[in-house]
């Protein structure tokens, strides 16, 4: 790796500062140089590990208690990681114990449910769920939304929120979930928003805010988008593909 004469370097390496993408990698012949090749293998190894590490909800629950929010820990019907990967249908359903746990909590009229699901990256939830909720919860309190305990669900897919929202007859459902890890972003969180979620909702009825991580969408940007979606859906009484996210972006000027 020390003989640079064997590599054609690209003269536009300074463009790397504008994107996390693997640009200006150079070439040996017309192929990837050794270093770029090994860097890829390193990133792949880290992403593989992010998928297989189990979530620990304990510290998240503690942080939320300090925000005066109660939590409950629930399980999907996928009993282990292997089953979770092969049977997404089970990851969308609450197990029996989960319903018993929910019934143990006093039922009262509810406006919104918040669900935290491990999804495909436990590390995304570990890093981003609490900081995002620290920003979101004050806004929900300002609106005086009634909210049951925050549900922390293990081995769960996005649609797990439908069962929970239906259980509470909640109007609004927000699911924070670990997205499938990328090479450059093993810790990316997504937020799925559904108006009047119930079992059998299709993906067309949801809105998604994705790529929330340190190099991606910031917590504040995600919050702006989610608040827009909540307000618009309250007006229109639906969510999904017909509810366009037209919250303004801070566009950068470009000239290339």
């Amino acid at each position, binding site marked *: 790796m020390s003989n640079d004469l064997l590599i054609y370097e690209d003269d*536009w390496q300074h463009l790397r500062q504008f994107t996390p993408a693997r640009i200006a990698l150079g070439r040996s012949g017309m192929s990837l140089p050794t270093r770029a090749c090994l860097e890829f293998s390193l990133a792949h190894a880290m992403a593989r590990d992010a998928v297989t590490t189990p979530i620990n909800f304990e510290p998240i629950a503690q942080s939320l208690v300090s925000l005066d929010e109660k939590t409950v820990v629930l399980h999907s019907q996928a009993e282990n990681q292997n089953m979770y990967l092969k049977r997404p249908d089970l990851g969308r359903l609450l197990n029996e114990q989960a319903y018993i746990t929910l019934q143990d909590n006093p039922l009262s009229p509810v406006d919104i449910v918040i669900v935290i699901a491990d999804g495909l990256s436990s590390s995304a939830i570990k890093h981003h769920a609490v900081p995002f909720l620290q920003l979101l919860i004050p806004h929900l309190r300002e609106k005086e939304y009634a909210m049951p305990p925050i549900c922390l669900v293990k081995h769960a897919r996005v649609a797990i929120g439908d069962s929970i929202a239906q259980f509470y007859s909640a109007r609004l459902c927000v699911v924070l979930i670990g*997205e499938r890890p990328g090479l450059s972003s093993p810790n990316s969180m997504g937020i799925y928003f559904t108006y009047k979620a119930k079992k059998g909702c*299709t993906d067309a009825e949801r809105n998604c*805010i*994705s*790529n929330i991580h340190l190099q*991606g969408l910031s917590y504040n940007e995600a919050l702006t988008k989610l608040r827009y979606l909540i307000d618009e859906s309250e007006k229109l009484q639906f969510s999904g*593909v017909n509810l366009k996210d037209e919250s303004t972006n801070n*566009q*950068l000027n470009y000239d290339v």
Partner: protein
Amino acid sequence: MYKIQLAHIIYHFKSLRELMAKASPPRSGDYLAGVAADSHLERVAAQWALADVPLKRFLTEALVPYEQDEVTRLIMDSHDSIAFMPISHLTVGDFRNWLLSEQATTETLTTISQGLTPEMVAAVSKIMRIQDLILVAKKCRVITRFRGTIGLENRLSTRLQPNHPTDNPIGIAASTLDGLLYGCGDAVIGINPASDNLDATLSLLHLLSDVIERYDIPTQSCVLAHVTTTLKAIEKKAPVDLVFQSIAGTQKANESFGINLDILNEAHIAAQSLNRGTVGNNCMYFETGQGSALSANANEGLDQQTCETRAYAVARKFNPLLVNTVVGFIGPEYLYDGKQIIRAGLEDHFCGKLLGLPMGCDICYTNHAEADQDDMDMLLTQFAVAGGTFIMGVPGSDDVMLNYQSTSFHDALYLRQVLNLKPSPEFAIWLENQQIFNSNNQLSLQKGIPALFKPAIKTLGQLSHE
């Protein structure tokens, strides 16, 4: 009822739908759906029984009822019985033999294309080995045009995919320049936007259109937003070259994507009326992938490969410039490992080509699948040998927005070296004129940045000092 005796056991299959599913080579999605064969022997029994089914049978036994599914209606109503004539007497097993024979030339395959239904093509693929899928697909030729000519013999096009996690225009511009300087982008420069936001879509459309105009590149742009977002962009007079949409093989699955044939038709008419192509007006870009219908709980009891092939009926109604099977994106619950991904990619290419579609393949995998770069190299090489129309070009194989691994600019250059596949003729001339490629279809060995791009790279460089 379909019946066969094999190894002293009698197997019954109660419908063509069940027979097709049980005959499918194994993949996790069919087990997930509960439609896969229970044993190796049952699978082979189903393949034997399927081989005896006359092709004509597919015109009378719909796999999803005609009354309840508009994709079935499209397939049945648009079947061309005259084109079907030369093969109408064959069984599925005969059809395999015919496809491999010298009777199946590029010309005859083109002639019968409209006489084939997706189900006939899916059926024969289930009794074909990988070398059969490659051999027959290579005989098919599907040529489409917008600002360049895609699909000519010994050509391989690339989609430049300069995605950015927050749609940052400078970040996207940086990846686009990188790709162009590596000779990528003649199929389309196509961005997956991070969120389906009309303003962001508009700004990305203008960014790409500016790049294509400024450098006079014989290619087309696409922002892969939902078709209804693109329709709004057209209303706002945005420079829309290609309309994108993900499509699937059942009405229910398409509904879960928020689309139907009428919406696609509306978008097709709107895009055509813009008349932005210079050498042709194929203006649709579709993406598909095995498992998408099941993931929407809308597979209607079909196996995922048959379902996928039915999506091609939707695609061919609109004469697309490009159809892309995004083969490993969906995850291990549908295609578990490298072996399943490789076969699926080659099946999709074969089925699409036989039905007359310009098939590309997003040769890809996610980090929760049992696959790695070696698996992708195998599919990449086999896909190119099969005459695949286009592949993706993602910087360093790492899509930093969609979080999966696809093929890189370097991967396309590998194929250009080992198989001497050239980009579309218009783009090849442009690359040579810009001294990006030399006359041997290889990157120019000249040091430094080609003159045309110096100002842009300098401007971006100055931004970095602000």
